[in-house]
């Protein structure tokens, strides 16, 4: 059979009614010509020659804009799409300066080691062609000990990651004296990955870096690149704490691209269950690859990479003999050699299909493919566009298909394609002055260089924090300087990427003499996933947790084969401590501020596979966790709910449904993992809380009181229902003031999400599974939303406080 071109294939797909029924949006993004500018005069002929030899006769307009700004000594942040020549925007000014002043040094930061490797090869390639000898090295956990000294001595361009800068370079800055006395540029790529906890840490690492540079008499420029988010300039300025110029107009030509948003058909309307995203992904990928159309499939889990790769390999086994890597997987955990082989196979088209996690999303050079299938929304629109950017040759047409799964984020996008194609709604948020994070870095900074009276570091009162650390005995003041005075190495006490560096290891004790660690669970999720009697699953193998030993940080499990899984029941109690701002909107009191959260896992449900039947309950005795954090909340007036034609129990279910949808949409706007925030329904006074126990939802007073078979009185008249969405990190990460600002848009979003969901009574895509929220939840949620979003009431009546 003759092979089809991508265009012919698209025509055929568009004629396929069964396929088209599931298409939520099909958008053809037209080709756009490039905008070019000549090389500026100051570019060294040698450097220019090398670029010209690579076919770069002139530069894109944004490249010239960037390098001219850097030349003028401005900090820049660049948001242009994948494959628009971003790396040149920093490599060119850096190499140019090194040619002019050979002592110049630059520090590059990438979020992953793989990206650092890739960039090292890129820079070394340029340098090699220039027949120059500019030491360019990666410096990270993989760097052998004997190479480290040479890098410190010879490195002009040192490529590392924030973790290594934090724990390996800054605390040893005297060994890097040469780098720091000559540093002129700091390059930070993938700036949008530094948000939430990681970003809050990064700002502090930058504060420390700047402080060390100042010690050696330097003040480097920052050149940053980011994916498209709603607030790139604000975010860069918050991270770097200096003014930054934004470059957002790409001059790179765009090839025509068809973008399809595909929502798999519903297979069970009652439960709102859709066909698995795997099925359409597999079918389309196979068809594309069969027609010699090079294709990449992104999945959201390592397991899915393996499953889909196996399907595709099986499919092509029967055809003509092909290379073993004709279709292949790609993910973290594959050995570097294999990964390099797959990358080059993609570039020279020996690999025609690759199934990958987001490991291939960031800048690794694999050339440009023709088609990209994104199996499940990757969690942010920025990531989606980065993945989509993998397909798109300079010439010709490319295809991107995003396949939605059943969760609320995916379904919201499937129903609201405009949201996706218009300006990005996603905000990067950081809170570098979170006291716990700030304090860690003040310790590390004091280790690096004593603090002097009058110095500034972060937005809190530094002197008080220094005095506090002196009282704790880790700092010692001598003549108005605070010196590190402890044996420990403070940078080792904190991980930049996780909330709590403490982990719980899961130990398989199935074989008596051969106990093995099969997984690690972070401290917080350990309480809900590996409590005593839980069923814990790794790669579809079930394990029964015999004992969670919090003292040894271990959970002991053994293999079982049962027909149920467990779902922990958590009681959450939120008490308002301080309100930072409030507004009255359509009768609703909307606020944000500081709260105390007490959480306790009190039991679990056994839920049968497939039918989701509830098979029973068990108790769990684990300590409460108490945390102060920041939250956004709003209180719905009691009289408004009284007017609705539902029972009190139904109203509570409806509130739970509203909180469910709101929680997921909030995570989406924040580009946060759903674990980064949490929700609770309670009373503003902190007296009453909605609990979900054996007999359904009810209102109860005390957080520690056990669910007494639904006998607690459900007295809605005693309470003003308040929905809290709070940061799951002590001290807060800065999410809540953004949610406070976006309150109205969020509620409207939930309304659209629930209103357009085709399920009958509620499903995991809108208000949560029916078995969880009750049969009326969807209806009640919509009724509540409609009454609070009533246009007449939406006029702001009063507002006060900060935003």
């Amino acid at each position, binding site marked *: 059979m003759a092979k089809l071109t991508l265009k012919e294939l698209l025509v055929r797909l568009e004629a396929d009614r069964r396929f088209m029924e599931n298409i939520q949006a099909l958008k053809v993004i037209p080709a756009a010509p490039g905008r070019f500018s000549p090389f500026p005069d100051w570019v060294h002929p040698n450097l220019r020659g090398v670029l010209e030899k690579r076919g770069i006769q002139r530069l894109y307009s944004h490249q010239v804009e960037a390098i001219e700004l850097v030349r003028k000594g401005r900090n820049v942040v660049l948001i242009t799409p994948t494959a628009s020549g971003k790396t040149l925007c920093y490599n060119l000014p850096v190499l140019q300066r090194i040619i002019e002043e050979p002592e110049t040094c630059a520090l590059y930061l990438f979020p992953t080691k793989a990206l650092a490797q890739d960039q090292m090869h890129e820079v070394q390639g340029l340098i090699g062609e220039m027949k120059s000898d500019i030491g360019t090295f990666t410096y990270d956990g993989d760097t052998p000990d004997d190479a480290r000294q040479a890098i410190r001595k010879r490195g002009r361009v040192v490529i590392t990651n924030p973790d290594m800068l934090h724990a390996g370079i800054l605390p*040893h800055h*005297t060994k890097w004296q040469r780098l720091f006395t000559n540093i002129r540029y700091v390059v930070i790529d993938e700036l949008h990955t530094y948000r939430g906890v990681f970003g809050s840490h990064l700002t502090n690492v930058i504060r420390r870096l700047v402080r060390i540079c100042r010690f050696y008499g330097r003040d480097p420029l920052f050149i940053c690149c980011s994916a498209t988010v709603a607030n790139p300039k604000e975010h860069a300025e918050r991270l770097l704490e200096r003014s930054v110029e934004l470059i957002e107009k790409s001059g790179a030509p765009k090839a025509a691209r068809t973008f399809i948003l595909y929502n798999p058909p519903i297979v069970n309307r009652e439960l709102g269950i859709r066909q698995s995203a795997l099925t359409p992904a597999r079918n389309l990928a196979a068809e594309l690859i069969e027609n010699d159309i090079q294709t990449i499939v992104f999945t959201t889990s390592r397991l899915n990479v393996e499953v889909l790769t196996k399907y595709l390999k099986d499919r092509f086994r029967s055809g003509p003999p092909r290379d073993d890597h004709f279709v292949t997987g790609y993910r973290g955990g594959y050995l570097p050699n294999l990964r390099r082989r797959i990358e080059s196979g993609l570039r020279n088209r020996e690999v025609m299909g690759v199934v990958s996690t987001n490991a291939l999303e960031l800048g690794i050079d694999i050339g440009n493919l023709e088609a990209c299938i994104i199996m499940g929304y990757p969690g942010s629109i920025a990531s989606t566009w980065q993945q989509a950017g993998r397909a798109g040759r300079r010439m010709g047409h490319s295809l991107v298909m995003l396949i939605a799964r059943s969760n609320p984020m995916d379904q919201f996008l499937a129903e609201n394609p405009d949201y996706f194609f218009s300006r990005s709604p996603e905000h990067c948020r950081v809170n570098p002055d979170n006291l716990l994070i700030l304090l860690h870095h003040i310790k590390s900074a004091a280790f690096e260089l004593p603090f002097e009276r009058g110095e500034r570091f972060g937005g809190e009162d530094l002197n008080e924090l220094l005095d506090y650390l002196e009282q704790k005995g880790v700092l010692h003041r*001598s003549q108005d300087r605070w*010196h590190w*005075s*402890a*044996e420990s190495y403070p940078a080792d006490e904190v991980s930049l990427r996780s909330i709590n560096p403490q982990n719980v290891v899961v130990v398989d004790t199935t074989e008596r003499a051969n106990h093995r660690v099969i997984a690690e669970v972070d401290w917080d999720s350990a309480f809900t996933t590996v409590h005593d009697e839980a069923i814990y699953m790794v790669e579809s193998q079930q394990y029964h947790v015999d004992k969670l030993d919090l003292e040894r940080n271990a959970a002991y499990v053994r293999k079982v084969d049962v027909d149920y899984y467990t779902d922990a029941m958590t009681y959450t109690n939120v008490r308002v401590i301080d309100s930072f701002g409030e507004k009255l909107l359509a009768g609703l009191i909307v606020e944000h501020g500081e709260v105390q959260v007490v959480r306790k896992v009190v039991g679990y449900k056994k839920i049968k596979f497939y039918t989701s039947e509830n098979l029973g309950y068990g108790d769990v005795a684990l300590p409460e966790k108490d945390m102060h954090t920041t939250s956004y909340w709003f209180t719905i007036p009691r009289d408004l709910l009284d007017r609705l034609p539902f029972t009190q129990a139904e109203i509570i279910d409806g509130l739970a449904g509203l909180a469910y949808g709101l929680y997921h949409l909030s995570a989406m706007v924040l580009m946060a993992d759903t674990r980064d925030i949490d929700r609770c329904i309670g009373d503003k006074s902190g007296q009453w809380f909605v609990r979900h126990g054996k007999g359904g939802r009810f209102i109860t007073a005390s957080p520690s009181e056990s669910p007494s078979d639904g006998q607690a009185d459900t007295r809605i008249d005693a309470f003003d229902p308040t929905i809290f969405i709070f940061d799951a990190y*002590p001290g807060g990460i800065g999410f809540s003031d953004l949610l406070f600002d976006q309150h109205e848009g969020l509620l409207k979003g939930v309304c659209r999400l629930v209103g357009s969901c085709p399920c009958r009574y509620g499903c995991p895509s809108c208000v949560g599974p029916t078995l969880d929220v009750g049969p009326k939840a969807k209806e009640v949620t919509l009724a509540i939303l409609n009454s609070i979003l009533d246009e007449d009431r939406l006029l702001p009546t009063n507002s006060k406080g900060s935003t």
Partner: protein
Amino acid sequence: MNVIKRLQRLTGEEAQAAKKEAPTEQLSELRRRVETIMARRPERRGPLDAPSGSAVSVPPRRGILCGEEQSNAYGNFFLSQRHHDGSHNHGGRSIREFRKSDMKMAALLARSPQLAEFGIADGLFLDVETTGLSGGTGTIAFLIGLGWFDGEGFVTGQIFARDFSEERAALAYLQQISSEKRFLVTFNGKAFDVNILAARFVMNRLSDTLSAIPHLDLLHPCRRLLGHRLENCRLMTIEEAVVGLRRNGDIPGSEIPERYFNWLRFRDEGLLTDVFEHNRLDVISMAALTFHLTKVLGPDPMAVRAHHRDLQAAARFMIERRHMPEARRILRDLITAGNRSVRRDARRALSLLEKRTNHWQEAIALWRAMLQEDPDDFFALEELAKWYEHRCRDIERAVSLVGDAVIRQACKSESESKSFSHRLRRLTKKMKRPV
């Protein structure tokens, strides 16, 4: 709200805040612990046996560290300088002997030929006590122990930064002393002491005068020459084996940083006396060790009653560093002085050295000498047979040598006899071949 209150609320330490001990009680408790250690040191009984153990608060002790405040352009610091007479004993030996270190050998040990032109009095012995072992810029060297030979005797100078603010003056003084000396002697100083000091110089914006001068780090030579018979290569283990020094109630190195931090809080000199003592002994031990090692390598190793096995290690060390004349000398001396087994091993090692350097006559003489002592010596027989076969091309002599050995069943093991029978078969075949 106050930032500390907010912080305490986040960390949940509000409740515990009230329970803190009064500082004076902490000091008494500390002192009790220090005295338990000191009490293990018999010669130290006396003043420290004063009433202790009660929770009564005691004023910090002052004036018990010997030494005095010094000052220079960068400020003040404390210096404890002590002169040790030539007759001063360190373990089983006296300081006077340590002077006689062999500088030629010191140069070999340090891989630094300049050392041979210097005298031992040009050397600066250095050992630092730090606020931590992890390194990094947050670790300081609060006590810099120095030592040098002065006339018949030995001087130890311990530079002490009584506070962080005195570090700069202390380092400046170190610069001054080191500029008068021409080489450095340390124990693991390349990896630790000099590294830490290099960072401290940078932090205090002073030039690093230590990294550039020749440096004899005793740790690696100790491993090579003595490691084979010691359970570890810590300085204390070595000094006991070499000069028979036994320290009583020495403070474990791991406790030293905490002592300094407590000193900063309480200013009680009693917290530091044993730290100073520990450091002073370390410095003198390095002088003792330099003497011992250079003597083991030098022409008169018996002056330090060197073990024969240490000398064999010394010979290997010389061969590896391509100092063949010295290796020959050590092995020849071993042949003359050693017992039968030492003699055999030395001859064997020397013969291989001669063979490697194409001194065949010397090698043959050694093999013959070995056979004279033990006509069945497999090694010598085999080497001689190889010599006849490949060098002399005298196959008959080779056959008769090996044949005789096989006939009189000279071989002591299965593998030896197999090897010889094989060699014999091969040689007979070769003999029959027409020439």
